[in-house]
């Protein structure tokens, strides 16, 4: 019903095609802790994004296939197992292979500060560590991830 008000105030704008940003939230690797991922998914939903949640124990191949089929704009990866140095760059690499280079990859979890510059060099756009607020993540997504043209 909120849209009815919006339509009345700005009829012209409402006619424009507005793409929804689609974000995939995935848990690569073997750790079974997905509460964080679910909370992020929920926060992004509440911020108006369409979130595809793929669940636990995903291989990089599974994540990239889902990203391809769902045509997402960004991928958020939650990882607590310590295998981030292997899994995150591998996902970026696979995305390139599938010509999905415009998909923004970000990650979060227990990741030592020393690893973050390395991950960034390998194409991970942003890494969030424990203590990050939901607002920071939502703001990051809003500012950095846009629908493809």
């Amino acid at each position, binding site marked *: *019903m*909120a*849209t009815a008000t919006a339509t*009345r105030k700005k*009829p*012209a704008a409402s*006619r424009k*095609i*507005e*793409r*929804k940003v*689609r974000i995939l939230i995935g848990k690569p690797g073997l750790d079974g802790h997905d509460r964080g991922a679910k909370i992020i*998914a*929920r926060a*992004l*939903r*509440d*911020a*108006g*994004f*369409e*979130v*595809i*949640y*793929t*669940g636990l124990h995903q291989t990089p*191949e*599974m994540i990239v*296939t*889902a990203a*391809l*089929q*769902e*045509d997402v704009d960004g991928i958020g990866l939650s990882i607590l197992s310590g295998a981030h140095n292997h899994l995150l760059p591998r996902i970026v690499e696979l995305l390139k292979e*599938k*010509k*999905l280079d415009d998909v923004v990859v970000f990650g979060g979890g227990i990741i030592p500060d020393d690893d973050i510059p390395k991950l960034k060099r390998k194409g991970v756009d942003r890494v969030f560590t424990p203590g990050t607020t939901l607002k920071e993540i939502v703001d990051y997504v809003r500012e950095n991830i846009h*629908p493809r043209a």
Partner: protein
Amino acid sequence: MPEKGRSTLKSVVESVRAGDVRAAARLMRDLDDGLPAAKRVLRGLYKHTGRAFILGITGAPGAGKSTLVDAVTSELRKQGKTVGVVAIDPTSPYSGGAILGDRIRMQKHCLDDGVFIKSLATRGHLGGLSGSTLDVVNVMDAMGKDVVIIETVGVGQDEVEIVKVAHTNLVVVVPGLGDDIQAIKAGILEIADIFVVNKADREGADRTRRDLETMVSLNDYDEGEWVPPVLPTQASTGEGVVDLVESIACHRAHIFDAENIDRFRREKATVELHEMLKVRLLEKAIGDLERHGLMDSLIDDIANRRKDPYGIVEKIVNHRFETHLIS
């Protein structure tokens, strides 16, 4: 520019027909977002559709629809059929966002090239589907998928739009949801071609099954008319799924029967035309009113009771038909 436009359009049509996942996925997204260019591609694809068998799966939230889709897909893959899945989840009416979580239950087919899964949000569309479902199904059809499975949003009693789109409709019921009076109400239970009592290991499954069978037996069926069977399954273990897939094949044979197929195709075409008209006429009428700067004053007039919406709508509709459609 138009030349270039035409050639890209043609190449997208070709890519989708060749089964190019990237091209198809992008087209589906563009259709979901309502991009006019995507509609033009669909026009080019339409003549290549109509081959896929479309299976609808509907039922209450938590009935096990996604798990059943997964199990049925496995069975169809064993038969060598390629499968497209369109899974619909609700959009938040407050934020406009959505969590699309049906893939979680469909992991087995994640890396299978013969399966394409697309999650869609309802985006305010009522009836159990998204506004773009038919378009996305058509793209999967044109890609050459043998079977397209549509999983509706978890529905209550009256969200039966799936019946207009699918060839065969499964209504998934679980034991323990209400008594036999639920089974004699109208709505969702009337659209089933096949009833699935999922989670059939649970207490009360036999009772649910009997209630449904009694309900079915009270209907009047003409000779040769399809009588919906009631089948127990345990989607999570695959129990009963072979029988279910066989039953789906029987229903398919029934509607594709020489006596039924023409009527069936005409029904489908009617629905398709009506649905598209509904959307496009509304878009066009609103667009025209806005372009001519009439919308605000009309809304003010109605809000202040200076004019009535009935008369205004009649005027708009008649005007549209005279000047734009008939001439």
